């Protein structure tokens, strides 16, 4: 059976929230189509949205976290990477206090992710140092 379908999603690149279709042919992502009757993007996309499919199977895409060991980036597991980050943040907080840490969120995050980042910053780290990349 030959399968061609379009999967409606939101462009991952900025906070505007343009809708786009990912064209799927026999299970492979083959391109992007704009969503004409979508209330926000109304059938338009910018050049990034038009290429939103390009990174998914790109050869340069990172497949695992990388940790710098002795000056070289080495592939690592998520457990290893997140443990390292948690330890380092914990050490900085213990040494210099929570206000020595700041968090920058992003328009590329979903509302839910930004909510979690806000909670993480205020409730876990204990600082109000949280801002948005668009105000940089």
């Amino acid at each position: 059976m030959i399968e061609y379908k379009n999967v409606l999603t939101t462009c991952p690149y900025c906070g505007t929230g343009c809708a786009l279709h990912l064209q799927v042919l026999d299970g492979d992502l083959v391109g992007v189509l704009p969503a004409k009757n979508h209330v926000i993007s109304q059938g338009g996309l910018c050049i990034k949205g038009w290429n939103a499919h390009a990174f998914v199977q790109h050869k340069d895409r990172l497949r695992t976290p990388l940790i710098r060991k002795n000056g070289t980036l080495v592939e690592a597991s998520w457990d290893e990477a997140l443990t390292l980050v948690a330890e380092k943040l914990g050490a900085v907080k213990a040494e210099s206090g929570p206000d020595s840490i700041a968090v920058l969120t992003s328009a590329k995050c979903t509302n839910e992710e930004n909510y979690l980042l806000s909670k993480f910053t205020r409730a876990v780290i204990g600082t109000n140092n949280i801002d948005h990349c668009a105000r940089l």
Partner: protein
Amino acid sequence: MIDRTNALHEALDQVLPTVDGVLGLKSGPSGIVAPYLYSKEQPGELEALAIWPKMPVPDTLKIIQKAHPEAQFAVVCRGCEERGIVEMVKHAQLNWNNLTLIGLQCTQDEALFCRCAKPYTTHSKVTIGEPVAGVPDPVTEGFAAKSQTEKLAFWKEQFLHCIKCYGCRNICPQCFCNVCALEDEKWVENGRLPMSLPPMYHLVRAMHMTAKCVACRECEETCPADIPMAIQFRLIARDVEEMFGYETGASIDQKPPQLLVLEEGEYERTGLPH
């Protein structure tokens, strides 16, 4: 008048078991419409069949047919989409013999929306809906009536808004070159907005659409800057018809002028420098 959606359902129920897939439109989440390949294995999907807004169906068909050159497909196409398919067949982008066309006739309102001169199909053996006559294109005529100075000012103003999203190229079923001049820095400067004048991006596209544009207006619809670029393609199409007697998408047999070797006399008739 019989409801087009019902009539299309009846036609598709008949054709679906006989082909490897039927390319049509499907209503997805929140009623957002996109092309979809219906198959006899999953006839229930037809419940979400949609007919509007129209989409660049010939381009989608090309993607599917390139991967499955032997497969037999039926495709629901409007007049402009049928013309697009015809033109792509002539440029070896689609295989005419493996296609069953189901012609969806546009309504008066749809024709007015697209400022369409030919809102009907001419090749499809199965047709859905009653054909309506073409409507005038006040946007193009309004432009044509301007003076040379006004025309220049008009395009300068329009192209000032271009964000170079490349959407008009991407969505155009007739834009299928493997190597695109618009990605060559010799022609189009990278990383500069508004684009410098003369606007090479749009001039190159205008030239490349000569005797190819089938007036589907997908470029205008996807343009985030609302540039009425179909004006230039339609005026060029008028010239091509006058000079070469060539109407894009009309006849499957008539060779496009780009593919003809012109005799000396014919060259003179074009009025082009020779």
